């Protein structure tokens, strides 16, 4: 799993032991939180991350509303319209993240 590879690589560069991986997961990343949590332990087996925890921060979709000229967080993926004024807003500013944000480590 690429998440384990990325985290293991970062850990190795810093010569640290990882106890937890913090992941930022966008609602539009195409990846499902439960599936990641379910497979994480297996993916970590026989890697330097074995025994570590996966902590997922879900990132909602934010769009730019062309009418309000403001950044707006969408309550649902089924409606790309501004929650304030109802204008269709397709310009995605946030929500595609799949990022290893931080590592909890022991020296």
């Amino acid at each position, binding site marked *: 799993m*690429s*998440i384990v590879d*990325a*985290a293991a690589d*970062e850990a190795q560069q*810093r010569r*640290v032991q990882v*106890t*937890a991986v*913090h*992941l930022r997961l966008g609602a*539009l*990343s*195409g*990846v499902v939180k439960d599936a990641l949590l379910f497979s994480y332990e297996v993916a970590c087996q026989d890697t330097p991350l074995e025994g570590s925890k996966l902590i997922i921060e879900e990132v909602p979709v934010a769009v730019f509303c062309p009418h309000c000229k403001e950044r707006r967080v969408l309550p649902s*993926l*089924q*409606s*790309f*319209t501004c929650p304030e004024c109802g204008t*269709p*807003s*397709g310009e*995605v500013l946030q929500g595609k993240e*799949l*990022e*290893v*944000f*931080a*590592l*909890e*480590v*022991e*020296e």
Partner: protein
Amino acid sequence: MSEPRLVEVRRNVLKQNDITARGLREQFRKAGVFVVSLVSGPGSGKTTFLEKTLTLLQPRYRVAALVGDLATENDAIRLARSKAPVRQITTGTLCHLEAAMVESALHDWDLHQLDFLFIENVGNLVCPSSYDLGENLRLVLMSVTEGEDKPQKYPTIFNSADVAVITKNELAAAVEFDWEKAHMSIESVRPGMRTFRLSAKTGEGMQQYLDFLSARLAEQRVPVGN
């Protein structure tokens, strides 16, 4: 033992794919080839649509296709009937194409000899959305038999695509396909998305879509900054 501490790393998990995709996009631009990828669920008519596209473009353009599938070379064999160069990428158990697979499938092709390259992704409406393949245009296909609310069920893939193509329009009456409802579903997840409605079988609506592709190729070839 010391206390655990938090180190910020901010590493994009798909960075390697994105780097490879950027390299491909640059390679395509230099070669002057316009690259179109196709995503859809299984059975939406991607292969028939692509076969028709290749056949109709051939008199005017040099075209080729890569086709991704879990197993079998059936799609490549079908597409080869169009007489265009076609190469299969068999992914085994992997449910999507990645940029590195496209790169290795193209390693011995001279892209300068092409006007259009089509990449048919594995039939799947979930995973392909996360992987950039370096394409210039991503089409998402849905057939009239799949139900009008497909876009709202799979907003991520519709959001990652540039253009929607509604296929199998010859069956629309039989399945009582509600075009307005489908259009609203697309608009709700991707406002302003360019949409084509066509039938690869009868050819209805194909011309508009082919004209659109020709225009996009011409745009790409206009030198920038002159």
